[in-house]
């Protein structure tokens, strides 16, 4: 099916997943305007959200199945496999978040179904970011996502820390948006367009002016803020720590994924021929991996440890960016599937353990969990091993793919730094397992109220099962990621650097 983006009907078709989700968002808004008091309303809103996300994923699937292709002139929207696959990622991540939110919201007395509306709007923003073939669309998506997430971060109105998190996130996010917008303006000034394909052609033809490079640098800073790369990561631990736990899971996975998806598209399609960013991203990746891992090593609170570890994982993903190859884009997708699953699993268990008044769950507080809640401990152990990148889990496959992308681009040193950083990460992931399995309980009732409701149990079980299955049999996922990765490419008109051999074929 080829879609000509200058024809309104085709534009609507190309926007089908976004339109479906928008429609549901409006329906849900109407619903919560009438029904927003009881626990039942909250649950209904939650289930409606799941239906909304599912139908959106189906819409994306329909376009993928019909092999939607762009035709004619470059439009503002990308129509490629990368977009559909990332759509599934975002809706999947949001659905897992919704599933672990059910019990959390009720327990923390956050009886406001608007939560789910914000979740949907944030997801919509992410989808637009991944779909943007134009810097303005990406910026709009980013703002839609960010504003919704600012509110979500401060959703626990009675908690001062949640408010602090929202304020910090808002202030720094606004700065990041400013950088990004200024960068876009400079790029527009240098090339006369905000369309990525046209920028790519211009860069390919005319080399790069100072204004363009300055714009690119500001753009990178803006994205680095959003993905929490060192040294732009300062907000991340406080925000992740203060926000309600399911929101933290959503931020660590979805928000970061969306920013990375847009970054991949911008760099590959627009700036493949402006080599300057490779060096910058290389260093950014190194300091992020090293910094994130060493900072995480010093944390005793589980939530803060996961926050810093998510900084470290942004570093691993930057290695995929630095490779500057289609394999890197594919590796990003595989890694993100794994990362979403393992983060949601870990945060769900953390949410089950946390209680009002003690939002700080220390790693040592998990002592002896394995004897009381063997399945929960097993789930968290699998998530930790996967985060560590241990063979047999999806986290390993993702890391392996990133290493393949890096070594195929000849960046052996970066690959070596990545694995050494992973060794450091063993120093904070293993103590979690150690506490659960090897230390005695603090008291007989230490874990008496650790409990997951049925939706959260489904989410955790599905995540753990998927982690193990993809860890042993990732073939389908790899093929999907590869076609998606190949679909993001520099414009054909520009001179393309000599292709390096594809990995593994």
């Amino acid at each position, binding site marked *: 099916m080829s879609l000509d983006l200058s024809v309104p009907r085709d534009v609507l078709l190309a926007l089908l997943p976004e339109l479906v989700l928008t429609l549901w968002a409006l329906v849900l808004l109407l619903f919560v305007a009438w029904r927003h008091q009881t626990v039942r309303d909250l649950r209904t809103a939650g289930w409606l959200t799941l239906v909304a996300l599912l139908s959106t994923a189906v819409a994306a699937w329909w376009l993928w199945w019909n092999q939607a292709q762009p035709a004619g002139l470059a439009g503002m929207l990308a129509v490629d496999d990368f977009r559909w696959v990332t759509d599934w990622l975002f809706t999947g991540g949001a659905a897992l978040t919704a599933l672990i939110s059910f019990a959390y919201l009720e327990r923390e007395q956050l009886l406001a179904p608007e939560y789910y509306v914000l979740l949907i709007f944030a997801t919509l923003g992410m989808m637009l970011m991944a779909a943007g073939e134009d810097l303005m669309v990406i910026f709009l998506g980013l703002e839609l996502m960010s504003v919704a997430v600012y509110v979500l971060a401060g959703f626990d109105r009675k908690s001062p820390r949640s408010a602090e998190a929202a304020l910090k996130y808002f202030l720094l996010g606004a700065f990041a948006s400013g950088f990004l917008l200024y960068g876009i303006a400079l790029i527009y000034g240098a090339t006369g367009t905000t369309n990525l394909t046209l920028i790519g052609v211009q860069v390919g033809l005319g080399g790069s002016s100072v204004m363009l490079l300055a714009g690119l640098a500001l753009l990178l800073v803006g994205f680095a803020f959003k993905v929490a790369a060192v040294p732009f990561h300062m907000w991340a631990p406080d925000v992740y720590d203060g926000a309600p736990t399911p929101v933290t899971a959503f931020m660590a996975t979805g928000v970061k994924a969306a920013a990375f998806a847009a970054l991949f598209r911008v760099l590959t399609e627009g700036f493949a021929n402006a080599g300057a960013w490779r060096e910058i991203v290389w260093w950014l990746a190194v300091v992020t991996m090293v910094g994130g891992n060493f900072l995480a090593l010093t944390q005793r609170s589980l939530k803060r440890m996961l926050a810093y570890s998510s900084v470290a994982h942004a570093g691993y993903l930057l290695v995929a960016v630095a490779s500057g190859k289609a394999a890197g884009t594919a590796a990003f997708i595989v890694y993100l599937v794994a990362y979403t699953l393992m983060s949601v699993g870990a945060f769900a268990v953390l949410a089950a353990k946390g209680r009002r008044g003690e939002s700080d769950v220390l790693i040592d507080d998990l002592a002896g969990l394995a004897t009381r809640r063997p399945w929960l401990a097993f789930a968290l152990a699998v998530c930790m091993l996967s985060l560590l990148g241990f063979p*047999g889990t999806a986290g390993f496959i993702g890391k392996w793919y990133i290493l393949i992308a890096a070594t195929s681009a000849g960046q052996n040193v970066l690959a070596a730094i990545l694995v050494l950083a992973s060794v450091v990460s063993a120093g904070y992931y293993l103590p979690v397992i150690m506490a659960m399995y090897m230390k005695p309980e603090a008291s007989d009732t230490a874990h008496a109220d650790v409990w997951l409701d049925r939706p959260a149990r489904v989410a955790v079980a599905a995540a753990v099962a998927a982690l193990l299955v993809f860890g042993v049999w*990732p*073939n389908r996922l790899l093929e999907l990621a590869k076609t998606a990765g190949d679909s993001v490419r520099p414009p054909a008109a520009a001179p393309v650097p000599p292709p390096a051999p594809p990995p593994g074929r």
Partner: protein
Amino acid sequence: MYARWVLTVLLVWPLVAAAVVLFVPAPRAKYVALFATLLEFALSVPLWWEFAPTGGMQFVADYAWIAPWGIHYTVGVDGISLFMVLLTTFLMPLSVLGSWSYITKREPGFYALLLVLTTGMIGVFVALDLFLFYVMWEVMLIPMYFIIGVWGGENRLYAAIKFFIYTMFGSLLMLVAILVLYFHVGQATGTYSFSYLHILANLQNLGNVAPWLFGAFFLAFAIKVPMFPFHTWLPDAHVEAPTAGSVILAGILLKMGTYGFLRFALPFFPTVALSETVQVLIVTLSLIGIIYGGLVAMVQPDFKKLIAYSSVAHLGFVMLGIWALTLQSVQGALLVMINHGISTGALFFLVGMIYERRHSRLIDAYGGIARVVPLFAAILTIVSLSSIGLPGTNGFVGEFLVLLGAFRTYPVATTIATTGVIIAAAYLLWALQRVLFNPLDKHENEKLTDLTPRELAVLIPLLACIVWIGVYPKPFLTRMEPAARQFIEQVRGK
């Protein structure tokens, strides 16, 4: 039929059994585990006869696994890995039997981990695909980590994490090296594959990355062996691990390091491995291991630590034999690998048995117990003598062959290494004297009970092997000879 499936069955069966063990009532777990490991051993025994003493891989099975990356499930054994597989399946039932009364809490978990560990260890020895090898190499870390960390001694958490991080540190750099090899060979031949034989056959013109790649493999294996400066995890892990854990660590896990040198590091990078610098480095480190390991063993107050350091010394002989690259020395190194598994395994069992009775591993806590437990004393003496390398026992054949073969390549180093045998006699005989023969001056030792039939069932197969290899090593030597020759040609020939 047997030839095609045996290795796969050996890999899958322990996993199935582990799942069963987890769900049987706790008191039954050990019976199921014993049955499973005995069946595993029975399945592996025909390998001994079916194996044709020629070069090359046998019992090969090959299936596509992760096709997009050219990863296959490829397994097979040659004259090097055959013995390692048999040693593993032989030691596992004994380890289960040896844990019979030692492990009293969370039994199903313990035995399930032992079985998963079996799969991991056999997988490392039979893998002929570098991805599969790496996966197995890491997978066996987790069960061992739990075995030390959950069922270990007082300092178990420290020992467990040290063991884990040391091993992981080395192996992750190896992972990058594997990927670099994959792309190098892929670009040269157009076939991107992790197949061991494919990479081995087409590895040329590595240029100046070769030393780095060798370094990465070296680090992974040297930590595992362990060679001198990387050995500090070993005493901790050995001492804290429960008996079965120590036996498996010493008996099999350490052999993975030397096996890695034989299988990967030397055949892949012969020019680097035979360069002057690396030869001097390896020989020096081996000698330090032999001498320093022995001297440190001598002053250990803890019997288990003494055995742990003696492992460092024994593995030094293996490394010396491998690098000397003569037929006798390589065969000797392989034999020492087997012997060390048997003798040191038996020593750890014996220490574990006396620890169960007296709850002390300190040598000073005993004295004169030969009068109380004569059977125990007799067996401990025989096993110690075999560990020292007394003629007529297995230890003699292995170390003699290593020294004989290595003398042709490194005469000075071999002469120095010979003193290692004397040091071994010193620390073990001295320890024997203090434990078994001095006056029986501790009141608590007067009521010790002698070995039970179950404990004898653990030790007698090991004793039989000690005598068999000591008196008639020919069946072993003929089976390993073609593989050893091939190995030497591969390294020397390039």
